[in-house]
């Protein structure tokens, strides 16, 4: 249990020191080094902690203390849960956070010292919140860290606060995820009302013992799913993720590719033992996942901003994971979560390296960068191959497992759509690679290779993206070491699954090569030929417009009606009362003429009246 505490305390101590000591924060670089030291300690501790779980020789461990002792209701406990799932996820989070923080040292070097200190304060805060979320042993605590993670994301998206778009994107991200979190909070309460506990272990035991009504369980899980959909940017909550690219690129790599957006999937994998009791909900999750994977991949086809291509790709890959959860393959989803964290963080870091060199996000302003930036190009290629799912990269194995579990779950249509999506994925990442790295014209500006602080983290991730598939045998061992080990039967996927997946990926890559490298045909002509479809994609299926319409018309319309009612009816009543008082007072004040004798007349008359009432009757 000590490693888990150390894991949490490293970033927390860094954040507290940077936050509480303004001179340290304003100094910039010392704050950065302190934050990196904190996360390095966490990475080391969580790594040591995770190794036995990867080897399958450790049992789940819980550490808890009473937070709010209640009588007549279940006490609220604060606790850490270390099992195969949380230990491996914590190690992943700490590792990626460490690499990203080292990378940021060079990427953010041109920032003023004070804002560099602010950046690292946010980074340390986010790392602490994310690790706390992963290691939580109950739903309530998960929710607390869940919101802290959202706050960290908000702060880092809006880091360049001088730009109005960044502020808007930060707000959009926060409110869109909050929309799902309302469902999450209600789901937690429903589950608490039905099972009387927040703790995962007790929840699983009670549900397994049949002590929880099926309807309440479905309702509670549906709420939790809503929260996961918001955080993991599932359709229709995906609108915030492309805009979140306004944040610094390392932040996108950490939060919006590897960790926070994966938290939704992580939560679903965590509660997966409960999901099997709610089959309708699983079908819904599957449908949402497949839909998200497909729609986001198509939207990535027409995007020219390299970071947004990657953002849509992230949404799409998270859709793959959700689809796996929905088809009963939590292990496949978690495997893909791990490998995706490697290759997508890698792709974002290389994109940051390109943007650093070119000074623009626009793919069409890049080109032939491979010559000037060989390391970045090699890393980008590794990430792209892994994302496309080419043998023997990490992405191939995890995507194959997802496809196999979807097929085993009895969804042939979803399987077909996901294979198609895999092809589209290969096409758009190939397009990005050929446009930026090879292409027909030189990039603007003077491209140069990035410093070692940037290339070293990229190289580490590139290796992981290439060989991460070796983790595949560890996944069942990790799950065997969780608090609710599934009855694992080794799935024997039909041999055509990997062949189909590879074919789709290869044809996607080949098509992008023909279109953007060989110039065998003009992509612009294709775009003109399918005009309405391309417009649909470029406008992102009008989901943003739909949100805006609902907000502008429905919500603001309702607000103006309510505002009118408040201004003229509620306030009107108060104003009418005031006006009446003034009117009556104006009439009555004439009685007070200031003459003593008139007042005395009234006193005498009153006395006579009282005397008559008392005696005369």
């Amino acid at each position: 249990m000590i490693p888990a505490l150390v894991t949490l305390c490293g970033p927390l101590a860094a954040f507290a020191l940077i936050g509480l000591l303004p001179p340290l924060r304003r100094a910039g670089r010392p704050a950065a080094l302190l934050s990196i030291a904190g996360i390095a300690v966490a990475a080391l501790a969580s790594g040591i902690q995770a190794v036995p779980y990867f080897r399958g020789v450790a049992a789940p461990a819980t550490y808890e203390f009473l937070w709010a002792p209640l009588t007549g209701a279940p006490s609220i406990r604060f606790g850490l849960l270390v099992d195969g799932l949380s230990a491996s996820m914590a190690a992943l989070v700490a590792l990626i956070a460490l690499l990203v923080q080292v990378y940021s040292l060079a990427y953010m070097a041109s920032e003023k010292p004070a804002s560099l200190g602010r950046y690292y304060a946010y980074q340390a805060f986010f790392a602490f919140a994310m690790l706390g979320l992963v290691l939580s042993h109950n739903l309530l605590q998960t929710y607390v860290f869940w919101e802290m993670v959202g706050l960290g994301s908000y702060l880092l998206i809006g880091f360049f606060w001088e730009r109005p778009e960044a502020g808007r994107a930060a707000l959009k991200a926060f409110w869109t995820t909050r929309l799902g979190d309302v469902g999450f909070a209600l789901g937690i309460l429903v589950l608490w009302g039905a099972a009387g506990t927040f703790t995962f272990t007790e929840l699983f035991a009670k549900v397994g013992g049949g002590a929880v009504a099926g309807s309440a369980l479905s309702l509670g899980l549906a709420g939790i799913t809503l929260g996961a959909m918001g955080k993991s940017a599932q359709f229709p909550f995906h609108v915030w993720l492309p805009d979140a690219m306004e944040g610094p690129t390392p932040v996108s790599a950490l939060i919006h590719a590897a960790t926070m957006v994966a938290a939704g999937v992580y939560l679903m994998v965590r509660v997966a033992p409960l999901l099997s009791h709610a089959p309708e909900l699983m079908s819904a999750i599957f449908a949402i996942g497949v839909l998200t994977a497909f729609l986001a991949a198509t939207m990535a086809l027409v995007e020219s901003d390299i970071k947004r291509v990657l953002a849509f790709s992230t949404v799409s890959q998270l859709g793959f994971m959700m689809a796996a959860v929905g088809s009963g393959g939590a292990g496949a989803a978690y495997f893909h979560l791990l490998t995706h964290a490697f290759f997508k963080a890698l792709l974002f870091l290389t994109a940051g390296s390109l943007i650093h060199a070119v000074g623009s996000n626009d793919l069409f302003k890049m080109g032939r960068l491979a010559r000037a930036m060989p390391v970045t190009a090699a890393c980008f290629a590794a990430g792209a191959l892994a994302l496309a799912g080419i043998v023997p990269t990490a992405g191939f194995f995890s995507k194959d497992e997802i496809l196999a579990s979807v097929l085993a779950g009895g969804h042939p249509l979803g399987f077909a759509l996901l294979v198609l999506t895999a092809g589209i994925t290969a096409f758009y990442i190939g397009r990005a690679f050929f446009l930026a790295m090879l292409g027909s014209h030189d990039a603007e500006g003077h491209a140069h290779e990035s410093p070692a602080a940037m290339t070293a983290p990229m190289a580490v991730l590139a290796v992981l993206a290439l060989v991460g598939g070796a983790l595949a045998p560890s996944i069942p061992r990790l799950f065997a070491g969780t608090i609710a080990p599934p009855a694992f039967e080794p799935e024997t996927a039909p041999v055509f699954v990997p062949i189909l997946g590879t074919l789709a990926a290869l044809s996607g890559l080949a098509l992008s090569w023909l279109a953007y490298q060989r110039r065998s045909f003009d992509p612009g002509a294709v775009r003109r030929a399918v005009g309405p479809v391309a417009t649909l994609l470029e406008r992102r299926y009008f989901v943003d417009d739909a949100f805006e319409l609902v907000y502008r018309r429905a919500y603001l319309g309702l607000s103006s009606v309510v505002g009118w009612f408040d201004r003229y009816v509620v306030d009107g009543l108060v104003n009418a009362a005031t006006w009446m008082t003034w009117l009556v007072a104006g009439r009555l004040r004439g009685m007070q003429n200031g003459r003593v004798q008139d007042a005395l007349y009234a006193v005498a008359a009153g006395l006579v009246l009282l005397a008559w009432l008392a005696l005369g009757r």
Partner: protein
Amino acid sequence: MTAGALLLVAAAVFSIGLFGVLARRHAIGVLVSIELMFNAVNLAVAAIAWSRGLVAGVVLVLFGIAITVAEIAIGLALVLLAARVRKTSVLDDLDTLRG
């Protein structure tokens, strides 16, 4: 003379005093009328005390007279001050408290 007749006289004097308080225009006149009302009350108390043979009632009357003197001294001082500051002692003109 019976206590009843004395009470009747006291009631008459009280009423005359009340009329004076309400109807006199000059402050001095009002003060004089107040004295009449006081003395009517004193007379009534004395009459009842006499008819019942209570010594305490007579003592109370003597106290009342003493307090009346003090009160009228204050009242006259107020009237003189009003006359000096407001240049009038007519009550109808002293209406600063009107709403």
